[in-house]
């Protein structure tokens, strides 16, 4: 098993290397001039020339490449052309907000999706099943950015409240902020017993998380239903029923445990989707995560920041796939005991 882990790590690093190289190459194909992005479009040619030299953009491509890769490994991910701040720091400071949103959304999706999928399979053809299937196909058809706006409109029209934006109310953030331990507001507030802070953070994360959770919840529902239908037709389920075991035990333990690997695959795919999906939710809800950082980087052609985001995204994706594969192997007793 550990030989497989090592081989996986090596291929992942190789893939990461390729991705970085490709993105670097793409960034150099850029029609725009990074120096211009750096100092602004109104600069004079002399200024542009100076900055070009300063940023090392006049050196041969392969020199720039080698330097960049070397810096990467040493933790220097370059400086953002737009913010003039280190890219790594910029990403790292905004990461917890995005991570918290993604994790809460994923938890919601699983908490809703799995039971719904199980019930739909158990009551195949009946009202609950049709309802779940309709809900699921609607869930995968909604553009996430539209859903976020829709929820805001509904909240303001039906509940007559101004839907909260950002992560915390202004007065909480300024007057009695939550002590920072992990960077996850919900966790920090809980741990320090800051109940008003917890409530504030929870009300702020609610709508964005629901928006982000809709698509994965639909996917999880569909896959769980399909896998459960397959499992419920197996001999061993018939055996359990023949021996008089209760339907609840059969469904939620004996059958579901066999359907979980398929659901896990979908959870992995959903997390990958959430990596970029979160950008949109963050824009719509003014959430201070990497979404806005990334979008600005893309629109401004801030190529060090774009590189940083790409490397982060690809790494996260590789990590997710790796973890999912490890979990799959652990879940299947036929593999685990090798």
């Amino acid at each position: 098993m550990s030989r497989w882990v090592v081989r996986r790590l090596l291929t992942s690093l190789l893939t990461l290397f390729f991705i970085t190289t490709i993105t670097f190459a793409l960034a150099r194909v850029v029609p725009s001039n990074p120096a211009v992005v750096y100092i602004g479009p109104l600069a004079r040619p002399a200024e542009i020339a100076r900055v070009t030299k300063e940023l090392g953009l006049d050196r041969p491509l392969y020199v720039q490449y080698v330097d960049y890769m070397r810096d990467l490994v040493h933790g220097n991910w370059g400086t953002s052309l737009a913010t003039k701040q280190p890219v790594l720091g910029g990403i790292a400071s905004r990461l917890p907000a995005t991570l918290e949103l993604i994790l809460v959304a994923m938890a919601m999706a699983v908490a809703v999706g799995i039971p719904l999928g199980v019930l739909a399979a158990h009551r195949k053809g009946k009202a609950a099943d049709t309802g779940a299937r309709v809900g699921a196909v609607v869930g995968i058809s909604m553009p996430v950015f539209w859903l976020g706006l829709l929820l805001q409109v509904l909240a303001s029209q039906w509940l007559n409240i101004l839907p909260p934006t950002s992560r915390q109310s202004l007065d909480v953030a300024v007057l009695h902020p939550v002590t920072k331990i992990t960077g996850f507001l919900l966790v920090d507030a809980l741990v320090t017993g800051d109940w008003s802070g917890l409530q504030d953070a929870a009300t702020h994360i609610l709508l964005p998380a629901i928006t982000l959770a809709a698509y994965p919840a639909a996917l999880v529902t569909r896959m769980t239903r399909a896998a459960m239908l397959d499992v419920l037709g197996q001999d061993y389920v018939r055996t359990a029923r023949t021996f008089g075991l209760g339907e609840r035990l059969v469904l939620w333990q004996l059958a579901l445990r066999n359907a979980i690997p398929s659901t896990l695959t979908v959870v992995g795919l959903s997390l990958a989707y959430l990596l970029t999906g979160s950008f949109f939710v963050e824009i719509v809800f003014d959430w201070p995560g990497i979404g806005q950082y990334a979008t600005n980087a893309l629109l401004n052609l801030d190529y060090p920041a774009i590189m940083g985001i790409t490397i982060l995204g690809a790494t996260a994706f590789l990590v997710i796939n790796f973890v999912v594969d490890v979990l799959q192997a652990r879940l299947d007793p036929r593999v685990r005991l090798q």
Partner: protein
Amino acid sequence: MSVTIDSPDQLPAPYRSTGATSRAFRVLRRKPSALLGGGIIVFIAFVALAAPVLAPYPAQGRGLADVPARDLPPSSLHWFGTDHLGRDVLSRVIFGARPALGVSLAVVVLAVLVGVPLGMIAGYRGGWLDEALMRVTDIFLAFPPLLLAMVISALLGASLLHAAIALVISWWPWYARLARTVTQSLKHEPFIDAARVFGVREPLILTRHVLRNATTPILVQATVDAGTVILAVGALAFLGLAAQPPTPDWGLMVADGRTTVITEWWISMFPGLAIFTLVLGFNLLGDVLRDVLDPRSAGR
């Protein structure tokens, strides 16, 4: 005496490929979700084609502003209200069907045209060609979904064309993989062996026999993907990485109304609803297609 066969039509009947697709269409006609999904798609296609005639304010649909009439709520004059530049939202949504359908279908078709031949050849030949294809697709598929398209589109310069190119680049590996898998499973079917034995040359084998049997899974995947591509185009447009003003693109329209969505909700809501409806149509149709065609497809 040797027999040479120059065309698969000269092969004896049992060795021709099956017609799963035509069988399927007959069944589809009876399923309600297929009818609903297909109906939605046909309707929106019609709207796209007849846009200049259907739109109450076609010039505004294309981009003409009428600033004094801006931010008007829905009324009998403007069923969907007007946007920040006074343009009739209904007309904009109607004209928006054109880029939505056009670009998405173009992306899917191109991704299939690029990916399927590569996948088929790699799957049929095997060997280093296959390995190479697998490694290349691995790299592409290692990018988180949509991120690659965002980066490419941004770097090329945000426009509808560049967004389309970016999406084709992101999507072709899926079809290459799919075509490869299907080809590999078909490679060992008796009728392919028979064709080879009779001397049919490889390009013909691939195009007539393999392709005809591969169309069903590819068609199913393409229909399911069409919805996802529409969402992707809309997403890129929302970020400003695709269509630029004054193009009537649904994603762009949603972005336009974003900051004032509480007060002038119609500017974002209706274009978004349009995206949702079209994607729903493709998903409904794709689901039914998959259910109907999967149990019957050969070798899966």
